[in-house]
């Protein structure tokens, strides 16, 4: 054994060596004694759970770790009692600041030289990023994912579980970017149908003919190219929930067919002769004023009343400014995880700019602003220079304090128009680009332009 190897061997017998190794690995590791009390807690465990080593050591593991499985079938106890090793079991823990964190755990017994069990060791890996990406792809969110501390949401929180438990049709009304899909998903997950599918259809994104076959499906030979039967969204959502987004954009023809499904719970696929039953709960959403559409004969009154059984109005972000800091914290956390960054806070000036802004694109716009800022921010604190230019340019010159901007609907309308115009000018009136910047859908931007009387300048229209 060389001198160097001998030194390493001696060092490895020092208890501090083990601690150094444990602290240098990326997975959380902790050990418990026979009573289930924590005896060691590495650095990654501190970072994932939020509890410091000093707080954790000496406590019962289930009081620190707070995994859902701790209260049902403690894996460490099982391992200690049966010698059964648990590998990569997925559970959810509650961190010190009450965030639910998905992790995968593995356990093993610790035995002394005489073969006596003296405790157990648990290693765990943070799966937040994977789960977050899965959520974003699948669009499935839970009640617990709603972030709000505002009074406006209090009543919604109170009634949402009861609404979810019923099987009634729900109409979600709110501006673009307020989180209608999140609410629809939360209603599904709180309902008796939560084990069934949650299927989304954007009624505004498909032309009438396509939408009909998409909703009701078609039979082989129904039209040229229909070589096999295709189930519609109603069939796919069987036993679950069908979320009809932008329901105000439905054509009158499709509205009649949808009305029939809502009234009789039955439909016929295109080219089919057999009527099919629809065991589906409908949650519809719109950012349009349906009453106004009914008055203008663009939306059927009978369908409106069928959809408007239980109505939830989701307030826009400008009506609940107290939620802005909470949402900022939430998005910083999510984006840090997603982008592998360590941005901790916003400077006072940057925060003030965000608090004073009126968010025509609502929560989605706030999220996009923060994503923009985090891409540019190289340190731990977001500064005004990291924010999109349209915020910092307009704020000191034109944006009065929030109290004044909320003085009347007209002022608000002007502010919205001003914000949209500013983004449009910056993007040379390219709607897709401007909509992306605002965090709203292209068609929503188009509708807002129409409502606010914003027109594409002729010179731009010609050049495009």
């Amino acid at each position: 054994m060389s001198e160097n190897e001998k030194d390493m061997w001696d060092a490895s017998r020092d208890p501090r060596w083990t601690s150094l190794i444990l602290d240098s690995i990326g997975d959380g590791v902790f050990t418990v004694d026979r009573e289930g009390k924590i005896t060691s807690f590495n650095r990654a465990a501190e970072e994932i759970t939020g509890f410091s080593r000093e707080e954790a050591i000496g406590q019962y593991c289930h009081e620190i770790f707070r995994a859902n499985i701790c209260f049902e079938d403690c894996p460490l106890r099982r391992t200690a009692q049966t010698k059964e090793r648990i590998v990569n079991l997925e559970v959810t823990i509650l961190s010190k600041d009450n965030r639910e964190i998905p992790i995968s755990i593995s356990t093993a017994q610790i035995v002394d030289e005489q073969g006596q069990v003296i405790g157990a060791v648990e290693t765990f890996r943070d799966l937040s990023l994977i789960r977050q990406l899965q959520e974003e792809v699948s669009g499935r969110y839970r009640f617990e994912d709603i972030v709000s501390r505002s009074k406006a949401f209090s009543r919604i929180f109170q009634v949402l579980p009861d609404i979810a438990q019923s099987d009634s049709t729900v109409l979600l009304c709110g501006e673009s970017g307020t989180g209608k899909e999140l609410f629809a998903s939360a209603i599904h997950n709180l309902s008796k149908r939560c084990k069934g599918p949650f299927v989304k259809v954007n009624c505004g994104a498909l032309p009438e003919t396509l939408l009909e076959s998409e909703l009701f499906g078609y039979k082989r030979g129904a039209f040229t190219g229909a070589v096999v039967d295709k189930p519609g969204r109603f069939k796919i959502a069987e036993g679950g929930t069908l979320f009809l987004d932008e329901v105000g954009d439905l054509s009158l023809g499709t509205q009649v067919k949808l009305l029939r499904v809502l009234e009789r719970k039955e439909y016929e696929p295109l080219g089919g002769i057999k009527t099919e039953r629809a065991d589906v709960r409908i949650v519809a959403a719109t950012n349009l004023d349906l009453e106004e559409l009914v008055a203008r004969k663009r939306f059927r009154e009978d369908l409106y009343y069928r959809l408007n059984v239980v109505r939830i109005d989701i307030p826009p972000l400008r009506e609940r400014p107290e939620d802005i800091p909470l949402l900022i914290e939430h998005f910083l956390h999510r984006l840090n995880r997603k982008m592998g960054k360590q941005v901790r806070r916003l400077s006072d000036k940057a925060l003030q700019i965000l608090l004073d802004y009126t968010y025509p694109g609502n929560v989605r716009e706030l999220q996009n602003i923060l994503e923009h800022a985090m891409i540019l921010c190289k340190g731990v604190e977001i500064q005004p220079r990291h924010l999109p230019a349209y915020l910092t340019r307009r704020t000191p010159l034109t944006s009065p304090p929030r109290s004044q901007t909320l003085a009347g609907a007209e002022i608000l309308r002007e502010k919205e128009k001003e914000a949209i115009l500013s983004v449009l000018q910056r993007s040379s009136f390219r709607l897709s680009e401007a909509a992306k910047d605002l965090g709203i859908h292209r068609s929503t931007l188009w509708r807002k332009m129409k409502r606010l009387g914003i027109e594409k300048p002729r010179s731009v229209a010609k050049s495009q």
Partner: protein
Amino acid sequence: MKVAVLRYRERVAPRYGFSEDALIVDLVGNEARDQEVIPLRGWFPYEIPKLLKEKGVEVVIAGGINGVFQEMFRSFGIEVVWGFIGTPEEALAAFSMRGTGGWRVPCGRRRARRRLGQRNRSFGKEVK
């Protein structure tokens, strides 16, 4: 003032959704009067705020509790004090001293009075 301590195995429940029962205590000054235990098993987490409101509870003491459920309690006019690790007695004593403000960290390294082993939950015990 009626204070409810959410419990799990006779300690403050570390996670709201797994509370076994609620110990409701009528606090008069620092003195605890009239105690009542309400079983919570079988209730959905979002039903509990209403249940405790009907019992006249004004403050809930919890371990870990998700923000949405905190808001649900607040929407019923119930204050939530969270982050406690220990026994309900310790929690109530700390609450009497500090009230609802500024208490957001676990009480620290208090030793449990009862050992897991006494409750037949000891580790390393061979299962036959």
